[in-house]
């Protein structure tokens, strides 16, 4: 399989006043195209930090990170924003939908950055909502949807511009078991049937089972561990 993400000697240092905190230490990691990877580890181990670097939301202090041959560590803020718009979809623990917009409008958001016409945008958003099984809720606002439904809208928003990569930070962290399984099943479908590469942070071993394999992060380093 082709390598999609190539991480070399990656480190991240946060400065809190005078104090420097090295959150990630010299990480090396390859993620194959089409992989579904779960990242686990104790709180504060640097999972979100690593995920944000992979998604191009943050820039590393040292080392390199390449996605499909593009070096994220060498991009400026503007270039990263454009890269994110066309290559990554994000799913967060608390859905982070726009409360004033309908599900449809929420899903359409990333398409505003494309040259698509209003009719095209609407059509693509509808398709994405169908894919997550919420076509009948298109006109509902987030406040009128359950947590699981909101997270599925968020997933529709993440895939609507057809990115290669999905990064998910504890996507089921706020959901009950049943909704969590729906969301995880959906992610597995997106991975298996639509070829999306997925990196998912989770605390839940049951969630990690949906992934192809799991990596553990501890105090900023990847630790080798037999598959659970």
């Amino acid at each position, binding site marked *: 399989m082709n390598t999609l993400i190539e991480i070399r000697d990656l480190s991240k240092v946060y400065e809190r006043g005078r104090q420097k905190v090295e959150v990630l230490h010299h990480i090396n990691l390859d993620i194959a195209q089409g992989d579904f990877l779960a990242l686990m580890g104790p709180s504060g181990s640097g999972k979100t930090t690593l995920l944000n670097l992979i*998604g191009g939301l943050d820039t590393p202090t040292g080392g390199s990170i390449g996605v499909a041959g593009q070096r994220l560590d060498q991009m400026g803020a503007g270039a990263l*924003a454009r*890269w994110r*718009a066309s290559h990554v979809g*994000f799913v967060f623990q608390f859905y982070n939908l*726009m*409360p*004033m*917009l309908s599900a449809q409008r929420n899903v359409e958001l990333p398409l505003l950055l494309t040259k698509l016409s209003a009719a095209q945008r609407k059509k693509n958003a509808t398709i994405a909502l169908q894919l997550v099984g919420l076509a009948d809720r298109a006109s509902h606002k987030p406040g009128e949807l359950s947590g699981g439904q909101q997270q599925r809208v968020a997933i529709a928003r993440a895939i609507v511009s057809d990115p290669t990569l999905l990064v998910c930070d504890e996507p089921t962290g706020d959901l009950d078991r049943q909704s969590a399984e729906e969301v995880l099943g959906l992610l597995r479908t997106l991975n298996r049937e639509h070829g999306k590469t997925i990196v998912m942070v989770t605390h839940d071993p049951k969630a990690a089972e949906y992934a192809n394999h799991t990596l553990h992060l501890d105090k900023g380093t990847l630790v080798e561990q037999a598959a659970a």
Partner: protein
Amino acid sequence: MKYLHLIWAALFRRKARTILTLVSIVAAFLLFGMLDAVRTSFDQAGQSANGAQRLQTGSRLSFIQTLPQSLEAQIAQVPGVKMVTYANWFGGAYQDPHNQVFSFAVEPNYIDLYPEIEVSPAERKAFDETRTGALVGEKLAQRFHWKVGDKIPMQSTIFPNREGSKNWTFDIVGIMHSKDKKAGGFYDQMFLLHWKYFDETTPYNRGQVGWYVTRVADVNQADRVARAIDAISANSDHETRTQTEQAATASWMKQLADIGLIVGSIMGAVFFTLVLLSGNTMMQAVRERTSELAVLKTIGFSSASVLAMVLAESVLLLLLGGLIGLGLAALIIPAVSAGSGGMLNLPGVGAGSWLLGLLLMVAIGLLVGALPALRAMRLNIVDALAGR
């Protein structure tokens, strides 16, 4: 434009707060519309083709100082002068000292210099022949239910008659109609009495004149004529100052009140408050949307477009409130003018006021949005998502 629904949604995210802010913006621009109309009406006073042909000559010292009546013959001699007349301030009030009336004691040819005032030939003749006769503006007549033939008492707030009483009696002999309804508010409220009757009745006036009005043959010669008139009294004890009617009205009004300054200071205070208020609204609006703005940036919206969206939001807020406010002013002003029975003749919200208002809306919107917009632009995605 395709972001408009985003901006609109953001604006009405907190309906109550946005509406409260809108109400204050509406109120501020309503006030702006009304005050600017007042200012414009003051600026426009005396600005007419007929007005441009008239010069007013008053004492150089102060507008209360009087001038000798003998000047009339000398002014008439100045080349370029077509006609000259004079008048005194009478300071009349009807029944109640609060019912002030614009009353002037004039030479009979006074109305000949004001072609915009219409009096029927018969009434004009009656005025010329009646020593105690008075011509009254039609609005004034309506206000006090006067008609031709009435004998009315009038108090002068300044001048007693020979018996020492300030109560005068006049016979209403004619009604004045102003031809130019737009500029005519003043003439419709005017009360003209005979200078001769005035001069002979009050011991306070002996051949003195409040001011002269001159009609020039050629508007382009007005400045030269004005200088020539002032030259007559140079180095005398009654030096004069001659100005066009427009300039005279303006400086006369300035002595009463500097409307521009008053309007400017009121609006300054109002808009200052508005900036603080709507600035606070925008700041709160952006602060509580931190994570939403972070999501927009996560999705790939550039920092510049986030900045632009917040600026657009605050400009939209100001435009919405401002246009409603000015629109209300445009509706209310004619009603106020009508309700005042011609006392106030406000010109409505003119193109100038709309333009100035729009400029103010955009400027205040940008000013008020600048800080929150910068904050949104600089927002660090990772920190904002983590709630830091």
